[in-house]
């Protein structure tokens, strides 16, 4: 699957803006932005992006809770979700995958390779 649209979910406006620049200009993808888990659920349903890039640590509804909600809704259950997280340990990565995430991109990420990395993560999940 070639990615063409991404929903970025992060409570930090700077990170959202920077992700948008990277994904739109480097990746050439249509990019939507959500500032919270709640907003992410609405946008995911309305826009049906190929991929959701989801921050783990957010006030209120955090990443794993949002993922759980997405996977439990018929209209969003099929969307690939990749976590955006601080440096993690290997066993935490497995924990995220068990929750239903396709993978994890660690912060700080390289904006010049972010789209490539996302594509590779999705390809790897589909290959399984």
């Amino acid at each position, binding site marked *: 699957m070639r990615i063409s649209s991404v929903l970025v979910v992060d409570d*930090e406006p*700077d*990170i959202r803006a*920077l*992700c948008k*620049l*990277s994904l739109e*200009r*480097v990746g050439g993808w249509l990019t939507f932005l959500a500032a919270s888990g709640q907003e992410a659920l609405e946008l995911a349903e309305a826009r049906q992006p190929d991929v959701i890039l989801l921050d783990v*640590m957010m006030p209120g509804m955090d990443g794993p809770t949002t993922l759980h909600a997405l996977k439990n809704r018929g209209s969003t259950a099929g969307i690939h979700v990749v976590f955006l997280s*601080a*440096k993690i*340990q*290997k*066993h935490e990565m497995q924990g995220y995958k068990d929750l239903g995430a396709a993978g994890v991109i660690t*912060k*700080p*990420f*390289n*904006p*010049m390779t972010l789209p490539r990395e996302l594509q590779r993560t999705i390809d790897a999940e589909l290959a399984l």
Partner: protein
Amino acid sequence: MKQPALPEDELQRLHALRRYGVLDSQIEQVFDEFVVLVAKTFDVPIALISLVDSERQWFKARVGIEGSETPREVSFCGHVVADRDPLIVEDTLEDVRFFDNPLVTGGPKIRFYAGAPLLTPEGYILGTFCVVDQKPRTLRADQLETLQLFARQVMRILELRREAALSAIYRRLFETTKAFVAIVSQQGTILEVNRVWSDRLGLSPEENALRGWFKLAVPEDGSKILQAFEIAKAGGVGEFELRMRAKAGDICWVSWHVTEDTNEGFLYCVGHDVTASIKAAEEAARVARMKSEFVSVVSHELRTPLTAVQVALGLLDGGVVGELSGEPREMVQIALVGAKRLARVIDDILDLRDVESGLLKLDLQDVELSGVARRAIADLHAEDDRARVVLEAPEPLWVRLDPERLYQILTNLLSNAIRFSPSGLPIGVRIEHRGPSARVSVSDCGPGIPEAFQARVFEPFAQADASDVRRKNGAGLGLSIAKALVERLEGKIHFSSTENEGTTFHLEFPCVLAPSEVLQ
């Protein structure tokens, strides 16, 4: 003259004598009345209660004789001690053992002697009750029996005295010890407690008895008492820690051991107040937790803006928001390198916290060392095209560890070596068998570690020279992390260093069989 021999149990006998605490004690009426009574009964001028010490006999009570002691070697009583029998000498001048004894030839000019042993319940002879005359005499069997009866009475008094003294000593111990002591019935009723209970728990003895053992304990701990009592009743030592409620409401941690006296059916309980050490351990854990949380929060707070900086600089550098060239591009690249370094320091701090706090989970596998080393070296070459690393691994060696952590250790050692090696000179990595272990050595051709700094090499943020931080481009955490990881993996790390020649770090891990060997 025949000197008295020493009995076989002389050492124990002397020890027993000393335990009565009677040697050199004050004159006491009860014993004085005994000797007067015996002298009258036997119609003799001299009667003595004599205790045979190591070098002398000492008279606890005497009538008709001067002086309170004589040397043991001239004593008659010494023979009673040696022979373990009563001694009757009807006429000393007719007896080869005594005719030339100075007590016979000189004062008090003994002609007749009869002594009955003072026998302890354990069977030691402390001395005699004896009668002496200055003219020859005989002693009938019934008279000897009377003398022995007096000797037994004297012994009984000494025995009662000792018990009373011991009892006072134990009472004092009971009251002065800092340990909790309790004597408890099999039903758990407290029969007796020492003062520590009232001092520490603020309860009077009556209150202790009323409340009972179980009611003093925090309810969840009640079962521990029962278990310990069961063990004690089965003849063992019941050990447990109990939280006890003081009257003031605070909790006192007491570490107990309980034994049973099967004759009396009482449980003897001794407890030590361990509240201070438990509180200290809790405090240490709390501080460690706070430190760990602090590190997490600070790292997160640092990382969030740093991510923004690094990503923004990455976009500028990548020309995404317009091509940059010349000095502006150079400036952006300098800023980007700085941001990356900062990110690595934060990662290192988190790593160190994870390893030190035990948060790090290990994924243990049987690993062939050179494979991991090749990967670390290849990644280093990819990152830094000036790096030159030469690997020597003459044979495959297998160890059991977490390959990702080994990769991290090697990466840290390699980047440390690169930082300190003059550019162009190669870094050596050697993997070899060493006794039961596999050894990985990473050598550089750097300036060596100054001797004064060698002890601190593995300390976090340690730098041989503060100016190194900038020059060498590292925060000083790499080796701390490497050491912490090696130790988590139950390996060893050490180094040797020669000034102006270089430094070699050695890792050692116990070898395991290769999978192919295991199958065979």
